[in-house]
């Protein structure tokens, strides 16, 4: 029999507050953490808004050497891993390290560290032949995104399968999905899984400026992320991380762990259409949803809530609304849907795992987080998107989806145990 996978610990670093409970507090209050970018001087940029984490690495428990060594994305992930492990109560030191795995997602890796060092080595872009004498000791760690998985693996002393999954903006969902596969097939008993990204830097902001994907609503940052709203005009770049403890359900039960939920099913499909464009019919996302539900042995009627990708671009929100209808039929109209990106922005690869964390908390606490800033209906987005206010709601199974550059479409079904 295939093993089942439980989520027993949750750690979050998200805009609006470090730590799982601050994150949940923000979501349930319907507060937005989007603001004018402070991480760099954005005056020459089209979009000058970001969902930033007020992150004090030292206060978050990192040592001087950890702070020097790790790029911001790495710092987020390690802080999250520590919170998740403490939350799960699991004693990793008592386990065979070969049975502990790590699966971390990231869309842009250590871009921030890489860019900051580039600026120095190139002396402000002047030198194509960058000056190697200015290279910091951990520079190669910024070039390879796998560093993010290395840092978490080092933290938990894992000797099992360790990997960095990088499928653009579905990285976080896919990294958790990969962890589920490792446990189900018996390659690992416990996997520290999640994702991290810290993309609020000039190069990443500029590349989204160039394709006009981010919101230019600089006059009103708090209300700039408007998924499913008729006036939406792009996503708001965010940052953060969520890391969770995933373990074999039977082992989790045996040690009396608190089980947030089980991962019932996961699937990913690609649209093979366009690197950034989406077909309006949502066909491949609908297929991923159907396969994830089948994996969970559930029907459309069993889904009680959808945590949407809801990035707030014109095409995305229409695309996934179509996907929900295609895969769930009339059930899509009966259940609450919401996008937490309205509050915490879009942290690229990280957001998929932050959304899984939100689903785990939603199932555990039976509250649906809202879609903030949703005032103006869009005729093409005609589902119940849970506007403005969190809602008490009975949920046994929820769906989380993601969509990413490269054509990736992923879906995960989480269920109460």
């Amino acid at each position, binding site marked *: 029999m295939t093993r089942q996978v439980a989520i027993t610990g949750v750690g979050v670093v998200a805009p609006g507050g470090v730590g799982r409970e601050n994150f949940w507090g923000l979501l349930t209050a319907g507060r937005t953490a989007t603001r004018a970018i402070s991480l760099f001087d954005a005056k020459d940029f089209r979009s000058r808004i970001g969902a930033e984490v007020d992150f004090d690495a030292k206060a978050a428990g990192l040592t001087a050497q950890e702070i020097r060594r790790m790029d911001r994305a790495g710092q987020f992930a390690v802080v999250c891993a520590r919170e998740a492990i403490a939350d799960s109560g699991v004693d990793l030191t008592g386990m065979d390290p070969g049975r502990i795995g790590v699966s971390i997602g990231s869309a842009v890796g250590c871009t921030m560290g890489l860019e900051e060092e580039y600026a120095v080595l190139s002396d402000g872009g002047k030198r194509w032949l960058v000056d190697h004498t200015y290279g910091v000791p951990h520079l190669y760690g910024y070039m390879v995104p796998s560093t993010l998985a290395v840092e978490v693996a080092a933290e938990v002393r894992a000797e099992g399968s360790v990997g960095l999954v990088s499928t653009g903006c579905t990285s976080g969902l896919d990294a958790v999905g990969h962890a589920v596969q490792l446990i189900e097939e018996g390659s690992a008993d416990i996997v520290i899984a999640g994702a991290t990204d810290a993309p609020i830097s000039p190069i990443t902001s500029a590349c989204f400026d*160039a394709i006009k994907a981010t919101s230019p609503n600089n006059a009103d940052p708090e209300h700039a992320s408007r998924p499913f709203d008729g006036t939406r005009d792009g996503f708001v770049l965010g940052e953060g991380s969520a890391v969770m403890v995933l373990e074999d359900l039977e082992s989790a039960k045996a040690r009396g762990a608190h089980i947030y939920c089980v991962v019932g099913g996961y699937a990913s499909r690609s649209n093979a259409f366009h690197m950034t464009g989406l077909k309006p019919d949502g066909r491949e996302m609908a297929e991923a949803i159907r396969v994830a539900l089948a994996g969970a042995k559930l029907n459309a009627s069993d889904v009680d809530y959808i945590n949407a990708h809801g990035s707030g671009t014109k095409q995305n929100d229409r695309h996934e609304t179509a996907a929900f209808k295609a895969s769930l039929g009339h059930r899509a109209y009966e259940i609450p849907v919401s996008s937490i990106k309205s509050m915490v922005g879009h942290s690229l690869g990280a957001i998929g795992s932050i959304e899984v964390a939100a689903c785990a908390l939603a199932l555990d606490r039976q509250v649906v987080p809202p879609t903030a800033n949703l005032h103006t209906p869009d005729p093409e987005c005609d589902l119940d998107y849970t506007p403005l206010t969190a809602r008490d709601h009975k949920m046994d199974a929820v769906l989380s989806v993601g969509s990413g550059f490269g054509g990736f479409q992923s879906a995960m079904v989480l269920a109460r145990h």
Partner: protein
Amino acid sequence: MSKFDLDDLRAIMRESAGVDEDIDLNGDIADIEFTELGYDSLAVLELASQVQRKYSVPIPDDAVHEMLTPRAAVDYINKQFSIAGV
């Protein structure tokens, strides 16, 4: 005489967005939609931003929706020149 003509556009297309092997850019392409010429929305955004840089003329966000064919693009770009008073 217009400041920006089809040949200027052809040069930018070749340089910035590449050429589909099945398309003869030197041919009569003025009224063929960019998508049929193998240029997607990203390519048109890239064209617009190249024009913006090369000629120092601002190209608004909605340009992509206006610039559906090479002729429309040339017209639109010339209109931006006159608005900018270049």
